[in-house]
């Protein structure tokens, strides 16, 4: 290490806040054990849709894990619906533009100019172990493959595979893999829930492509 100038007021204040941030993340700060029942659903807006659903219980002491794989994909495990900002930040650090909102009842509406359509999570809080269902307002089930999200050709099977997010139950909660194609790309991953702390909740992963 080299000798450095002393920290100025901003740098000291930031250090203090960062130390506090680390302290509040420490294992000792784990919250009382809380079990929740969740359903999981995954969807990709505009690009592809895949859904896996089921009931599960989550642990509160390790909120999430973000694990980059050797092939560039990123495996995300959510074991507790806490620390949405932390997950968002961890994904940003991996180059994935993510918005995580564990308090939302519905996913955010697409911005003007997005052609991805809207997705509604129709599951009601407290409905038990059944999986959520998804409705695409602009592409009802059974219709032929729509054009690409940006008005281009329909995605190929390979592209569809790449942009699909499948959410699965795992021992720790729910797990899904974000393709490396989402890293440093024009897509944004929305991870949202419905339901409150003590009730049932759904987890939805949406991939939104911006044109």
């Amino acid at each position, binding site marked *: *290490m080299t000798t*450095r100038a002393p*920290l*100025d*007021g*901003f*740098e000291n*204040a*930031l*250090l203090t*806040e*960062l*130390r*506090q*941030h*680390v*302290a509040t*993340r*420490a*294992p000792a700060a784990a919250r009382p054990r809380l079990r929740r029942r969740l359903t999981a659903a995954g969807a990709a807006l505009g690009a592809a849709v895949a859904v896996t659903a089921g009931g599960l219980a989550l642990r509160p002491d390790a909120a999430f*894990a*973000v*694990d*980059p794989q050797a092939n*560039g994909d990123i495996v995300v495990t959510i074991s507790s619906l806490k620390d949405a*900002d*932390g997950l*968002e*930040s*961890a994904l*940003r*650090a*991996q*180059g994935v*533009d993510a918005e995580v909102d564990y308090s939302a009842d519905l996913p955010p509406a697409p*911005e003007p100019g997005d052609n991805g359509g809207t997705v509604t999570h129709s599951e009601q809080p407290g409905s038990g172990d059944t999986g959520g269902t998804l409705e695409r307002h602009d592409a009802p089930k059974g219709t032929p493959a729509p054009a690409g999200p940006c008005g281009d050709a329909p995605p190929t099977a390979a592209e569809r595979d790449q942009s699909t997010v499948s959410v699965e139950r795992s021992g720790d909660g729910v797990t899904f893999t974000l393709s490396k194609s989402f890293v*440093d*790309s*024009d897509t*944004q991953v929305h991870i949202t829930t419905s339901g409150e702390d003590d009730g049932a909740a759904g987890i939805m992963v949406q991939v939104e492509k*911006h044109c």
Partner: protein
Amino acid sequence: MDEPQTTEVHRIGEDPDALEAFYRQHLPAVQRFVARRVSDAHLAADLTADVFVAAIDNARSYRADRGSPGGWLMGVARNVVASEFRRQQRHRSAERRISGRRLVDADALARIEDRIDVEREARELYAALAAIPERDRALIELVALDGLSVTDAAAVLGVKPATARVRLHRSRARVQAHLRPPLADAVAALNLEVQP
């Protein structure tokens, strides 16, 4: 694999003292990194905070076999800044754990502005990089703007050095077409050789 180095980085997510040592060591590099990309002092303060928060939250992902802690942090910083610009383009604001701008006093603001002045040419280059595809931009940013070797930049981004070199040659020509002589010459003179 350098185990002590890995442990040192992993601990910044759990141990405030480990975080402080890491912060003191890497803060100057992060501040210069940010100043090469943004001209607004308040945003620079926010992004400096964001980079360290992201590093803390993501500390467990560090692997020594993919580069030095400093290189890893540059990768984190690049992603944080790129994400901020994507949000801005879509008129969305970030929700921040720590608001850097709230911590800035007049003296600190002047220092940040000085740093931003020094990096004016680098920001011209950064603007020119917008002309090339994202996956190629990451490499040339780290090499041309931040001074990483091709090997280090490849490690940060998880690509093979030979692949990185090919991409850099391709994107260098595109970037040069968007630059005036001093910067174009600097980009032309980049050493794109892969160290053994």
